[in-house]
C-alpha cells in the first residue's frame, strides 16, 4: 500500500492502463501537453507519445463521437469531459450512440469507451461547473456509471472501466481531489463494476453514500457512534448497475435507511435507492427512509451558500437521528 492523493491515484490508473494495453488512447481538452486541467494526466504525453495522448479542441460532441467510433474500430479510448456539466454537450454521442450500439447491432459491436468527467462541486465554481448529474447517465440502458469516493476506489474503478467492453462513465470528485489515503500497489487492483462497499459495519441504520459524500458519511457515522447509534456506511461505488443485493442485505439487517447525496432529490439515484428499499425491502423497514440532499435549486458559488446547499455533517447526523427516532411510527 502507498498513500496517494485522489488525483494521483487516477494518474496511476491511466499510466498503468496505457502501459498494459496499446489499444488504450487518451484524449480530451488540456490533457496532453498541460497534463490535464488538474493534473490527472500529468506525464502521460511524455511517456506514451502524441499518438496515444492527445489534446483536443473544445468539441465535446465530436470527441465523444470519436471515442464511440474508435471504440467500434478496435481502440480502448478514454475521453475526458472536463466538467460533468459539459457532458450535456456530448449527450447525443453518449446516450444515443455509445449506449445503444450493442443493442442496435445485436451485439456485433460493443463500445468499450471510458468517459472520465470531473464533478466540480465544492470548488466554488458556480451553477454551471458544480452539478451532480449522475442520475442522468445512470438511467440510460447501455451505460455503466461508477464514482470512486476514495483514492483506491477511484483508481480501481477507472481500471475496471478501461477493461470493460461496454461504455462506462467514470465520475471523479473535485471535492476529494487532494484527499489522501492508502492505495494498493498491485497493478491488477481492479474494483469490479456493480459492487458496493461496506465502509463501516453497523446495526441500527444503513447510511448510503457515493462520490463526494463518502467522507461526510464516514464522519457522521463516527459522530453518531459516540452517541451510541451504530451506523452501517455503504458506498455504492457503481451507480448503474446498483448493487441491489448489498443494499437490501444491509437494510434488512438494520431496518432503517438514510441516503446522502450532493445531487438534488427528485428523480435521483437516492430516490431510486429508496424505491428499491421500499418495494423489495418493505417488510424489513422499521421507519421511513430519509433522503439528505440539497434544495431543488442550482449550485451557488460562495462557500457560505455552498455549505448551506450541500449536506453537511449536522444534516446527516440529524437525518440519522430522525430515522432512529421514528421507530414504529407511520409516516
Amino acid at each position, binding site marked *: 500500500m502507498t498513500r496517494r492523493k485522489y488525483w494521483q491515484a487516477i494518474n496511476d490508473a491511466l499510466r498503468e492502463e496505457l502501459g498494459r494495453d496499446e489499444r488504450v488512447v487518451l484524449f480530451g481538452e488540456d490533457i496532453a501537453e498541460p497534463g490535464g486541467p488538474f493534473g490527472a494526466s500529468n506525464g502521460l504525453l511524455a511517456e506514451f507519445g502524441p499518438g496515444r495522448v492527445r489534446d483536443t479542441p473544445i*468539441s465535446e460532441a*465530436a470527441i465523444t*463521437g470519436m471515442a464511440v*467510433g*474508435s471504440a467500434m474500430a478496435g481502440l480502448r479510448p478514454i475521453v475526458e469531459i472536463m466538467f460533468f456539466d459539459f457532458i450535456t454537450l456530448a449527450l447525443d454521442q453518449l446516450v444515443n450512440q455509445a449506449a445503444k450500439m*450493442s*443493442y442496435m447491432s445485436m451485439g*456485433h459491436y460493443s463500445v468499450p469507451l471510458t468517459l472520465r468527467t470531473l464533478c466540480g462541486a465544492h470548488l466554488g465554481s458556480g451553477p454551471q461547473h458544480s452539478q451532480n448529474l449522475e442520475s442522468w447517465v445512470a438511467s440510460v440502458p447501455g451505460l455503466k456509471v461508477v464514482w470512486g469516493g476514495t483514492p483506491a476506489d477511484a483508481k480501481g474503478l477507472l481500471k475496471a472501466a478501461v477493461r470493460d467492453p461496454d461504455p462506462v462513465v467514470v465520475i471523479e470528485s473535485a471535492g476529494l481531489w487532494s484527499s489522501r489515503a492508502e492505495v494498493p500497489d498491485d497493478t491488477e487492483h481492479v474494483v469490479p463494476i*456493480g459492487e458496493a462497499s461496506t465502509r463501516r459495519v453497523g446495526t441500527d441504520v444503513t447510511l448510503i453514500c457515493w462520490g463526494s459524500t463518502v467522507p461526510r458519511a464516514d464522519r457522521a457515522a463516527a459522530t453518531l457512534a459516540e452517541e451510541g447509534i451504530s451506523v452501517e456506511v455503504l458506498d455504492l461505488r457503481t451507480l448503474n448497475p446498483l448493487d441491489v443485493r448489498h443494499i437490501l442485505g444491509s437494510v434488512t439487517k438494520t431496518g432503517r435507511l438514510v441516503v446522502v447525496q450532493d445531487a438534488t432529490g427528485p428523480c435521483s439515484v437516492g430516490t431510486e435507492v429508496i424505491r428499491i428499499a421500499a418495494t423489495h425491502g418493505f417488510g424489513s423497514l422499521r421507519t421511513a427512509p430519509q433522503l439528505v440532499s440539497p434544495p431543488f435549486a442550482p449550485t451557488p458559488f460562495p462557500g457560505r451558500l455552498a455549505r448551506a446547499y450541500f449536506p453537511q455533517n449536522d444534516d446527516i447526523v440529524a437525518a440519522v437521528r430522525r430515522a432512529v427516532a421514528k421507530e414504529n411510527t407511520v409516516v
Partner: protein
Amino acid sequence: MSATTPELRDTFQRLYRTMSLIRHFETAASRLLAAGELDGFLHLSIGQEAVAAGVCDVLDAGDYVTTTHRGHGHCIAKGASVERMLAELFARSTGYCGGRSGSMHVADPALGILGANAIVGACIPIALGGALAAQVLGERRVAVAFFGEGAVAEGVFHESLNIAALWHLPIVFVCENNGYAEMTPASKHLKSARVAEYANPHQVPAETVDGNDVLAVRAAAHRFVETARSGGGPALLECRTYRWHGHFEGDAQLYRGSEEVDQWRGRDPLQLLVQRIDDPELRTDLEDLNRRCDEEIVKATESARAQPAAEPVSLTSHVYRATPEAWR
C-alpha cells in the same frame, strides 16, 4: 463513351449493378410500407444512388463507412446483405438489428459499416473515430462519413472537419446535397448553397461534383480516398443530387412542386450511365443486370418475410456486452 477495356466494362457493370440493387431494394421497401407490411419510418434515397455506388466502389473491404437515416444505399454499396436488411424492415429476428431497431441502424463490423444513424450529423464524428483508430493502429484504412447537407448546420460537422484537419486523419466527408434538410430547402437553412465552401476555413480540400453522374462521383472519390490512404489527410466531397421521394414515406411534400421532381427524374443516375455507353453489347449486359437485381430483391423479400418475427423475449438482449454480476 466507349467501354474500351475489360476493366472499364467491369467497372460500368459494378456501378450499374449497385445502383440497380439499391433502386430495387428501396422501391420494394416503399411498396411494402404502402401495403401495410412494414412498421415504422422509411427514408428512401431513390434518385441518389450514384453517390453510394460511386464512393463505395473505390473503398476496400476494411474501410469504414457511417451513414444516416437515409442510408440503405450506402450499406448495400458497402456489401450489406439485402435479405438481412429486408428482414430488419419486416421486424424479423434475423434482421441486422434483430428486428428491434428498424431501417435506420444497419451496422456490420465484417463490412466496416460503423452504423447507419438516425441522428442528423451523429455519424460524422463516429467516422472520425474510425479514422483515428486506423491512424493509431497504423492501418491503411480510410473512413467515409456520408451525410446530407442538412447536417452541415450541425456543430459536429464543423468540429469534425477541424479535428480531421488538425490531426491529418484518413477520412473523406461525403455530403449528399439533395437540396432539402428534411422539408426545408437549402436556400433557407444554409447561407452558402455550396457545401464545399464550408471546408475552406478548416483547410480541408473539397470538390463539388454532379452527384447523379456515378463516374464523376467515383473519379473524385478515388482521388480523395487514395490521398487519405497514403497519409495525405482528409477531404470533403460534395455531390449535388436529389431525392425523388419525400423526406419519409408518407411525406405530403407540400414544400416542393412536381415540376422540380420531374426535372430531376429526367436525370436518373442509372439512365445517365446507360446513355453514356455506346456499346450495344454492354447496354444489353446492363439490362440483364437490372433484371437480375429485380429478381434478387423479389427473392430476398420473400425469404425475409418468411423469417421468424422478433419476439418480446429479445427485449433485453445485447443491451450490454458484459452484464455485471449485480444483475445476474
